């Protein structure tokens, strides 16, 4: 990095803005490569007593929320708290199902205080929306995602496929690059995906944004070797 700067310095010392820009871009690229390199590397053993991890849970319409709830039922709540549930603005059922789950948890344990929050995010793209207008709506969704992620700064992100998770995961990755918070992103591809990945899955797999990528059918594991085959969740 130092050599790089001193090489350019004599030529560009007269043009400070360009020097700054090149330095900034170099640092940024270095951070991006660093984060990608560290993606998927497990965190070290947690020192006892283990502090809980703030967790962002992305819900989606249809089977997505049902599958996510199935996963949440086998995770120890005291390890993943506080929990932030996010669903698309037009999805009414998912947050309701999440509330039901949280209420049942509140009944069965003695934990007091607010350990769950529920929020909505603008949708990047409605089903059937034209791809041209989707560019604008995706940008709006990204801005909204940035706002929410800066507020929450989760340590763990759980998602399983709905388009809503893309802006959130991209922002989480961006936050890692900037160095504000190192989050672990877990993606479970939907049970309905047997031979081909969804668009969300493809993006998170190819761009190496997800730390761990889970698939529920063996055909997908053969096609995407970095994925973990975990069998059916339902």
């Amino acid at each position, binding site marked *: 990095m130092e050599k790089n700067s001193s090489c350019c310095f004599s030529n560009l010392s007269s043009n400070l803005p360009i020097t700054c820009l090149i330095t900034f871009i170099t640092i940024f690229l270095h951070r991006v490569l660093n984060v990608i390199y560290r993606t998927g590397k*497990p*965190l*070290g*053993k*947690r020192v006892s007593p*283990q502090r809980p*991890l703030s967790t962002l849970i992305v819900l989606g319409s*249809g*089977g997505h929320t*049902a*599958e996510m709830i*199935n*996963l949440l*039922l*086998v*995770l*120890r709540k005291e*390890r993943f708290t506080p929990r932030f549930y996010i669903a698309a603005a037009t999805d009414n059922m998912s947050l309701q199902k999440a509330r039901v789950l949280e209420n049942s948890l509140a009944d069965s344990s003695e934990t007091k205080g607010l350990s769950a929050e529920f929020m909505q995010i603008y949708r990047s793209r409605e089903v*059937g929306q034209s791809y041209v207008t989707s560019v604008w709506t995706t940008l709006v969704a990204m801005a909204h995602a940035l706002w929410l992620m800066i507020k929450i700064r989760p340590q*763990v992100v759980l998602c399983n496929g709905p388009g809503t998770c893309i802006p959130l995961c991209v922002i989480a990755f961006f936050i890692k690059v900037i160095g504000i918070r190192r989050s*672990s992103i*877990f993606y*479970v591809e*939907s*049970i*309905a*995906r*047997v*031979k*081909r990945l*969804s668009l969300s899955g493809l993006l998170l797999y190819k761009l190496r944004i997800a*730390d*761990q990528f*889970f698939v*529920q*059918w063996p055909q997908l594991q053969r096609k995407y070797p970095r994925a*973990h085959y*975990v*069998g*059916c*969740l*339902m």
Partner: protein
Amino acid sequence: MGEARDGVKVKRVVFVTVGTCFDALVKVADCQEVKDELYRRGYTDLLIQMGRGSYLPAKSTGDDGSLAVDYFTFSSSIADHLRSASLVISHVGSGSIFETLQLGKPLIVVVNEDLMDNHQSELAEELAERKHLYCSRPLTLHQTIASMDLNSLVPYTPGDATPVAKLINRFLGFPEES
């Protein structure tokens, strides 16, 4: 098989669920061919969850020696309807499919050919290959009903999310569960 036993008719309900909207399935479930085939196979009642569709089935009490037909648009949970059904005919929604399979009910899934990206048929075909259900199209539904052998269906073992939880915990450095 639907005949009077001690004066009490044994109800065998076919529950059709289309999710949000699937007019082609509602239409074909209500067509005479399919209803006759269901009656022939010993079913007594047909209940259709039709969603936002525009086609309205014809209600019938079934007193004239045919299938009793009823319908509704949506309900907050179809679990009770699934539980009381003897046969389920469903759109390819992973929610209704797995709820039905977990209840051990015989299931025919009908693929919606009007949908653009038909990735959903992957799931239907895979489960049909593993003999957990029958897979059909609206136009071939009556043939599927006529030729199905429900005894040949393999019971579905419910899935388990613990492998995922294990990997997540291990990645984050939490100790193994005992």
